């Protein structure tokens, strides 16, 4: 706001502004000065966008935020190239000598090293990671599934969090499988600790761990239909009437994303 603005002065320009050099006059706010019908998101060259989002609010909601045409891309952390520094290079090179061409992608982000390993090589790589004296990731802390519906051909990811107590290092191994063929080899024979974690991942995401000794549901009832933590599985809930007004279930509410 500038001091020249007069009380009651016209604040809005209703016609589209065509002159690219045009700048707002004093006291005038350009509410619809952007005429471009499709806004292309700014995406870096190395970034790997997976999801594109339009508007500010959840899907299907009438977007009155004023940003209904904005398009935002989800840039996952870009793949890293060696040298990574610290102990990362040693582990990266060592695994590559033990297993032929093990990586689809290596991501070093926020101090956490992630090896993306194709599922065909997972068992071999995990065995090497556990047993080799220079790697020695003898402890599998956690297995957790993630569902990326927009990552076509690799909708289901499994992240293994390994810990080397010998070297005091942590490493994440990530593998993926398509929705149409949700099979990943089990690592229970290598890391018995993964037993229940893989059962939970099957239960919640429907990922079938081939070779698991007893792949049954663990958290949900045995006769449950569906895999609740997949993104296409609804949260559920019913509208609640409270003091004369109705509160919709969380999923149906309009909210920012």
């Amino acid at each position, binding site marked *: 706001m500038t001091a020249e603005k007069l009380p009651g002065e016209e604040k809005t320009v209703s016609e589209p502004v065509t002159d690219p050099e045009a700048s707002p006059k004093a006291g005038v706010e350009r509410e619809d000065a952007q005429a471009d019908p499709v806004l292309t998101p700014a995406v870096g060259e190395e970034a790997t966008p*997976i*999801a594109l*989002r339009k508007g500010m609010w959840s899907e299907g909601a009438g977007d009155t935020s004023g940003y209904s045409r904005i398009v*935002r891309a*989800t*840039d*996952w*952390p870009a793949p890293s190239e060696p040298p990574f520094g610290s102990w990362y290079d040693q582990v990266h090179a060592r695994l590559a000598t033990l297993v032929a061409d093990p990586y689809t992608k290596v991501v070093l*982000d*926020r*101090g*956490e090293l*992630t090896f993306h390993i194709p599922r065909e090589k997972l068992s071999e790589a995990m065995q090497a990671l556990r047993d080799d004296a220079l790697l020695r990731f*003898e*402890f*599998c*802390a*956690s297995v*957790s599934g*993630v*569902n990326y519906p927009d990552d076509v051909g690799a909708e289901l990811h499994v*992240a293994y*969090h390994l*810990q080397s*107590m010998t070297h*005091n290092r*942590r490493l*994440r191994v990530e593998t993926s499988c398509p929705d149409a063929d949700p099979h990943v080899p089990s690592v229970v024979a290598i*890391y*018995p*600790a*993964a*037993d*229940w*974690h893989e059962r*939970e991942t099957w239960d*919640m995401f429907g990922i079938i761990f081939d070779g698991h000794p007893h792949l049954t*549901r*663990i*958290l*949900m*009832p045995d006769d449950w239909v569906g895999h*609740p*933590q997949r993104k296409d*599985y609804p*949260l559920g809930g019913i509208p609640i009437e409270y003091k004369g007004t109705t509160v919709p279930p*969380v*999923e149906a509410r309009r*909210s*920012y*994303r």
Partner: protein
Amino acid sequence: MTVDRNDLYASPGDETEGTVYTAMGGGDWADIAGEQAERGDEVLVINMGPQHPSTHGVLRLMVECDGETVTSIRPGIGFLHTGIEKNMEYRSWTQGTTFVTRMDYVSPLFNEAAYCLAVERLLGITDQIPQRASDIRVLMMELCRIASHLIAIGTGGMEIGALTVMTIGFREREMILDFFEAVTGLRMNHAYIRPGGVAIDLPETGIAQLHDVINWLEKHLPEYAAFCNENPIFKGRMVGVGHQDLSACFALGVTGPILRSTGYAWDLRKQQPYCGYETYDFDVITWDTSDAYGRFRVRLDEMWESLKIVKQATDRLEASTGQPVMVDDPKIAWPATLALGPDGQGNSHEHIKHIMGESMEALIHHFKLVTEGFRVPPGQAYVPIESPKGELACHVVSDGGTKPFRVHMRDPGFNHLQSVPIQCEGGMLADIVVAIGSLDPVMGGVDR
């Protein structure tokens, strides 16, 4: 009474296995018992739980016994599954703390800390957390560790008949919970640790109350050692029970006091410090018996180490009175300032005055944070911390939105229950309770 091989309740085509007992023809249970006494091949299948006072919540144990010897035991979990991880995907990042705190409800502050540290790593603000906020986190976590160990020791004692250990355990815990209530407003489910810091500074009387708690604990913690350490009944029930050695711990992902009871000094506070633990002076407690008694002794001594840390944190907090407890970033710092109103809680007049009368930007930030929340850059983080039970970790994935894309809590109890068969098979039926007690699972965390 009919003893028959035909199972009347089987579906057509079902194979009948073993002897089927029905009450169709009447008879006497004594006849059955008498007949069974003659046999040596009968396996007794017992369903222990899910509603059983000694299973620490709703844990189901499917036990096969030969006499009183356990030949097979399989834990069944999931009875307390509440879908917390799924729910968090529909709430803002800050609201996530109110969900995670309800997972392992015996040590809620650790859940919050793991979650918030993971979110802070994604935000890239780990180094910007004020020192006072980290000190308060350490203080609260260590008090919470004492409270959690008191539950483990107390309920573990109760289950073998040492009722006094339970009553005094809850007495001490109550002192700690009173302090938590004074600071956070709640005895449990605090949602006190938030992304960026903590919700609110210690109250004016906080330090004084803290000294009372420390004095109380120093006076009363020796009682546990006096009651239990050399008690022949206690040792008779605990020594050699639930044996699990180091390699089995590694294989099954077992951490915490169970791992340390094998003599391996693994403690994430020392190995991979967070919240400034490297600046505190404390020891990692180990024992070398790998059994329930060793775990009891580890927990007992760890309470003293926690008390050491609490005292150091108290000194630091006394010195840093008045310093900020939330990150200096108005786009992240949740406006949680409250003042004491007639109802015991209320809006802070200072804050209301600031946003309504003084600062347009503060009002916008307040409004945007509460309605929209902050956005977290895309990526994933896995942050492990040393909870009273072992490695508690939070795997968080963000897609750049105002809500978590995926949150997974790696609860130590989930892994520890996997080791029930290795600890109990071949042992006595009565030792199951001792072994489970020494694992200290909390089903809220296991099932989430």
